[in-house]
């Protein structure tokens, strides 16, 4: 912490005034009870306690003497505005209330004596406070707990007598029982004290106010200010901050009404500053920060121009700086107590302005205090006063109390000014400035102002530079530099770099010097060409291990010291090699590296170009360029090197290969053969290094990570891409720098195979068949292809289910099953001579339908020559085909009655038909080899079923049908669903040879409902009738139950027939027996005619309706017309 200076505000001004109460009669050192009482007063004073500052004073303490009260101001001429001791006097020296502590119980044995001792003590303090309005109170410390008021008659009597003896009012006598509840009593006591103190300050205010009527405006101007200030201060002590603020405001306007001249300017400003501080402080306390800010602005506007003595101009700036700093502190304190600040209104701005004035002060000081060395500090010292301090705030030590316009003593005046100037010289200005700036930085960081923060840090860096603390300066500047670089504020970056360069020069810090130089001569620098030229020449000197010229604006002494440092550096051997990572800067050499293609075949040489361009004013010569790649084995192939002598650096010739001419793009190409192990790998440029200087001098490697580029290049590339210029045509040889893009990596891929792989097959594949794919491999290479291998089958990486349902084999003669894999790897084919062709058959069986991707991968090895180098390349060719698998045919099955009527159920022992339809879905003709019905035990064939579709050929969309007569044996419990069995179809494509395996497709037949019926009816009738020719119809009615059945039968009349037989009958049929009914139908009409309907009713099974039974009976018959023999004869006759 710095020691307080003349400009710091006095602590008594900055503290919060509290009522001052002095305690006497307490022996806090040796008396434990007194110690406890004192501790209760002063320990743990929280905000809820009344604001009092307590002090323990001895009984015989001497208080400041009170001067005799002035009765008239008529001849009084004030000597200043405010005495330096006044505030302290009322805060710490003159109590508002004096409290005498005395140990005395009401029933004390020697009451009388004690009473008079107490009265004497009171008398002593009264005397020492003579002339003051300070109140006196007495506290009796008692051992006994007092009785409730009024009950202890002795107490009230003795209290009255004590008051009388001490000349105290009853309100000023207190009792403090020393019991358990000490703190509670103390709090009550201090509240009472506080009231007394308030009264005291109120009287003081009244007293000061009463002076006013004696004052006149011509001679007592200073007193107006003084009195207002005092009233305000007393109000503050009284904790009446509202009125206090009002009085301070009046005082503030009064202070500006004072006549100002050079001699009293400092006093006026000092007081204005004090009052302003008080106002702002109270405004913040009242939570009206805007009022505080407005007051401060007003204050600054009023005082800004009140410079005072020109020879002491630095005093004004010092004062201004302090004003801003104090306000910043107040603001910050208010924030800590809960005020919210914003980005555009925070303490940082005030600290920043304080720093600005501190900078001004420093400049003025250097200007005004530049005395000749012969000038010495004046004797006698005019700044010394008899008391060692000033009487009034803001006055000159050599003419205290002097209030006229002209200084009384010119000689003293000069000496005083000189003394002040000499003192100013010793002020650590930079330290002050940096402290303020760093305060501001902390604030702006808090209020989201990163740029403001950077700016202040630059200023801090510059200040450290001035203070010759170059290490700290560089640390700060380095820190912010990249912000300006990323934001592309080149003018600001250049300015920072220039300062940094100067610092690094003065420290002879070689690496930094080179780093800053190379950016300052580069394209991001806004320096003029001649400055760049100067820096570049210095840079070359450093590269040649010589001492560079001093930077401009360095003072002579520092420059000289720096020269010596540099010479030392130069003479030291070693540490002459530097690597500078330029990626994050904007160096004067730009670099872009690119592979000419994003991929290279292993039998083609990899080509790589490095583009270099210098942006400095003079040509640059370099001695080595090397590219580092991810596979370091290639690094040795990507180097250009040409060791140069020192002279070459100086006189770089633009003709040389290793010379970069400003503004011209130079291309360096490299070519190498990739290693066969790198096939399928990525080769990356990890770095490009450019060596400047020489091994015997000093060498610097500029190192670009990756394929080059720097802090500015990506943005430039973006702009170039947008530019209309990029669309223009550029002459062949000329390379437009901006159009070059970095390509930092390339893939090494295998050699292009010169082999043809052809597939022939007949898609789609049919479900379950052995699908044949013919693979023809033909070598188009010029030499023997060795070790040809074919990998064929389902392409890996598809749905896992496909692997289970796909089987591949080379043997087409037998069906393959689950044991066969989905992919056959590395089928050896052997060597192929140029032009030789090989065919392979691959059989695929797809168990499920859907699309599958098949892979045919042919790999081989081949020896070849690249760039005169023998390499063995592995080549491969992939052929991929997607094959759809479809079902060959659809099988439809249905159950019909013997009348070909659809059945949703069949009946026990009653024959029915099973019909199968095979509908070809294959685009290729199919040959059905045979078909077979495998019946379940619940079904029986009526005869030996034979395939009816053997050797049938189905074209697309054609259908082959078969029909089998079946019947069901009886089932349990009348009705159930039974399995029917399977239907096997053996087939192959028509185009296939006879020895090709036959595919068998199994179709599961549906289940069917079987039902037992009690009665079965069938009719026996001729296939047709003839009009008017009788035809016999026989109905057979079988009882299929174990019971005797009563059957009711009737035949309904019909228009188409006459008939004979029983029209309505009831009969009884024995279990298992059959009844035959015979009718003769006599057709009346020709054509299809409905037979007369036979109604059958079972009395025992009402559920078995005639309708159900009627299904077994024919419903109609074809009736031919009557024969026409007679007519034929007549026609013949005619």
């Amino acid at each position: 912490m710095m020691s307080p200076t003349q400009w710091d505000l006095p602590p008594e001004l900055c503290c919060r005034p509290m009522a001052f109460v002095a305690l006497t009669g307490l022996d806090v050192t040796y008396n434990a009870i007194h110690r406890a009482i004192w501790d209760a007063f002063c320990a743990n004073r929280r905000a809820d306690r009344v604001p009092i500052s307590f002090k323990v004073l001895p009984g015989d303490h001497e208080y400041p003497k009170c001067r005799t009260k002035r009765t008239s101001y008529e001849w009084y001429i004030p000597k200043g505005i405010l005495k330096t001791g006044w505030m302290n006097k009322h805060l710490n020296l003159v109590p508002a209330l004096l409290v005498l502590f005395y140990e005395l119980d009401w029933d004390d044995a020697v009451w009388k004596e004690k009473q008079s001792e107490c009265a004497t003590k009171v008398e002593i303090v009264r005397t020492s406070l003579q002339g003051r309005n300070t109140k006196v109170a007495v506290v009796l410390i008692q051992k006994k707990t007092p009785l409730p008021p009024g009950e202890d008659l002795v107490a009230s009597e003795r209290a009255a007598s004590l008051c009388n003896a001490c000349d105290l009012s009853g309100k000023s006598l207190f009792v403090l029982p020393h019991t358990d509840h000490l703190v509670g009593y103390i709090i009550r006591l201090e509240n009472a004290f506080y009231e007394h103190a308030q009264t005291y300050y109120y009287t003081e205010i009244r007293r000061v106010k009463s002076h006013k009527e004696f004052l006149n405006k011509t001679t007592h101007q200073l007193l107006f200010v003084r009195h207002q200030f005092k009233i305000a201060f007393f109000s503050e002590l009284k904790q009446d901050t509202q009125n206090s603020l009002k009085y301070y405001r009046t005082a503030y306007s009064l202070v500006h009404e004072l006549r100002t001249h050079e001699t009293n300017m400092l006093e006026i400003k000092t007081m204005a500053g004090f009052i302003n501080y008080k106002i702002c402080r109270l405004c913040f306390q009242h939570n009206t920060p805007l009022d505080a800010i407005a007051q401060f602005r007003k204050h600054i506007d009023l005082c800004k121009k009140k410079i005072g003595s020109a020879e002491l101009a630095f005093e004004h700036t010092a004062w201004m700086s302090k004003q801003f700093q104090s306000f910043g502190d107040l603001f910050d304190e208010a924030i800590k107590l809960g005020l919210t600040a914003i980005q555009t209104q925070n303490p940082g701005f005030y600290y920043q302005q304080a720093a600005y004035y501190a900078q001004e002060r420093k400049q003025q000081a250097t200007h005004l205090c530049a005395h000749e060395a012969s000038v010495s500090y004046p004797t006698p010292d005019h700044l010394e006063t008899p008391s060692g301090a000033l009487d009034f705030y803001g006055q000159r030590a050599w003419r205290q109390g002097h209030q006229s316009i002209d200084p009384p003593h010119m000689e003293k005046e000069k000496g005083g000014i000189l003394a002040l100037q000499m003192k100013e010289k010793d002020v650590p200005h930079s330290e002050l400035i940096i402290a303020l700036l760093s305060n501001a930085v902390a604030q702006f960081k808090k209020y989201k102002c990163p740029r403001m923060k950077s700016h202040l840090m630059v200023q801090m860096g510059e200040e450290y530079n001035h203070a010759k603390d170059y290490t700290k300066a560089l640390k700060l500047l380095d820190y912010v530099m990249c912000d300006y670089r990323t934001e592309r504020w080149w003018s600001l970056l250049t300015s920072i770099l220039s300062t940094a360069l100067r610092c690094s020069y003065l420290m002879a810090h070689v690496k930094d010097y080179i780093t800053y130089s190379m950016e300052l001569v580069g394209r991001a620098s806004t320096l003029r060409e001649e400055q760049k030229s100067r820096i570049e020449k210095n840079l070359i000197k450093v590269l040649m291990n010589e001492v560079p010229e001093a930077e401009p604006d360095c003072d002579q002494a520092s420059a000289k010291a720096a020269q010596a440092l540099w010479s030392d550096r130069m003479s030291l051997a070693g540490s002459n090699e530097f690597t500078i990572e330029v990626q994050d800067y904007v160096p004067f050499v730009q670099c872009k590296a690119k592979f000419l293609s994003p991929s290279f075949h292993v039998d083609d040489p990899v080509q790589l170009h490095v583009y270099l361009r210098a942006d400095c004013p003079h040509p640059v010569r370099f001695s080595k360029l090397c590219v580092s790649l991810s596979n370091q084995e290639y690094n040795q192939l990507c180097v250009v090197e040409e060791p140069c002598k020192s002279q070459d650096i100086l006189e770089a010739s633009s003709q040389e290969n290793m010379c970069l001419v400003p503004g011209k793009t130079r291309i360096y190409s490299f070519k190498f053969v990739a290693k066969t192990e790198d096939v399928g790998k990525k080769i990356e440029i990890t770095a490009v290094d450019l060596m400047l200087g020489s091994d015997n001098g000093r060498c610097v490697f500029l190192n670009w990570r990756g394929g080059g580029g720097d802090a500015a290049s990506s943005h430039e590339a973006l702009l170039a891409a947008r530019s209309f210029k990029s669309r223009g045509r550029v002459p062949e040889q000329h390379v437009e720098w901006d159009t070059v893009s970095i390509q930092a990596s390339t893939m090494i891929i295998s050699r292009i195979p010169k082999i043809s792989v052809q597939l022939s097959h007949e898609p789609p594949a049919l479900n379950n068949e052995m699908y044949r794919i013919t693979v023809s491999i033909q070598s188009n290479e010029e030499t023997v292809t060795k070790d040809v291998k074919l990998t064929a089958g389902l392409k890996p990486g598809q749905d896992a289910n496909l692997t289970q349902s796909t089987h591949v084999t080379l043997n087409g003669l037998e069906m393959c099953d689950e044991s066969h894999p989905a992919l056959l790897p590395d089928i050896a084919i052997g060597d192929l001579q140029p032009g030789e062709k090989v065919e392979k058959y691959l059989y695929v069986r797809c168990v499920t339908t859907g699309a599958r991707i098949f892979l045919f991968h042919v790999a081989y090895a081949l020896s070849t020559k690249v760039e005169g180098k023998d390499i063995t390349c592995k080549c491969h060719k992939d052929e991929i085909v997607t094959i759809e698998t479809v079902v060959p045919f659809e099988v439809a099955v249905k159950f019909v009655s013997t009348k070909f009527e659809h059945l949703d159920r069949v009946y026990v022992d009653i024959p029915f038909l099973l019909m199968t339809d095979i509908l070809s879905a294959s685009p290729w003709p199919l040959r059905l080899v045979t078909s077979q019905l495998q019946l379940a035990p619940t079904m029986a064939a009526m005869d030996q079923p034979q395939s009816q579709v053997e050797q049938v050929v189905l074209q697309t969309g054609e259908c082959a049908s078969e029909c089998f007569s079946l019947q069901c044996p009886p089932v349990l419990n009348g009705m159930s669903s039974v399995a029917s069995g399977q239907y096997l179809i053996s087939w192959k494509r028509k185009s296939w040879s006879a020895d090709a395996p036959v595919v068998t497709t199994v179709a599961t037949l549906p289940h069917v409902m079987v039902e037992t019926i009690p009665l079965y009816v069938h009719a026996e009738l001729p296939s047709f009738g003839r009009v008017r020719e009788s035809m016999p119809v026989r109905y057979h009615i079988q009882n299929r139950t174990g019971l005797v059945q009563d059957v009711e039968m009737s035949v309904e009349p019909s228009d188409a027939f006459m008939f004979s037989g029983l029209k309505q009958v009831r009969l009884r049929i024995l279990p298992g027996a059959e009844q035959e009914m015979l009718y003769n139908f006599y057709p009346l009409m020709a054509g299809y005619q409905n037979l007369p309907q036979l109604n059958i009713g079972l009395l025992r099974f009402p559920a078995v309706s005639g309708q159900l039974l009627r299904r077994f009976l024919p419903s109609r018959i074809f009736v031919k017309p009557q024969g026409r023999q007679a007519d034929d004869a007549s026609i013949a006759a005619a």
Partner: protein
Amino acid sequence: MEHTQSRDACWHSRHHSKMAVCIAVIAKENYPLYIRSVPVQNELKFHYTVHTSLDVVEEKISAVGKAMADQRELYLGLLYPTEDYKVYGYVTNSKVKFVIVVDSSNTSLRDNEIRSMFRKLHNSFTDVMCNPFYNPGDTIQSKAFDSMVSAMMVQAS
């Protein structure tokens, strides 16, 4: 024609000496596209002033919610006052920023006049952008823009 115009501008500035001391156009990415100040010797200080004012501009832009972005007023008003200068800001819809620095002592310049200065600047900037030979993102080098800016600046004496 051009001659009359420039004389007009001169007349204008002489009678309204209360004008900008620094005018800057800042790209969306916050680098300067154009920056000019009087007096020239204090150029660097103005560059810093403009650069630091971007803190407030950024904050103001981000304070306006995304939903409100469409209705956002381009004029940002007084960014922050320094002891000597007042800094005003304006943001186009494409996030190009205009900054005008005015002397603090210049109390006669009202908000309306600042607004109209920004409008003029915006119009002129639009003209620059419409030039097919201008590459967006490049620094502005346009005589028309220059003379418009000159007309708004305090004449360096």
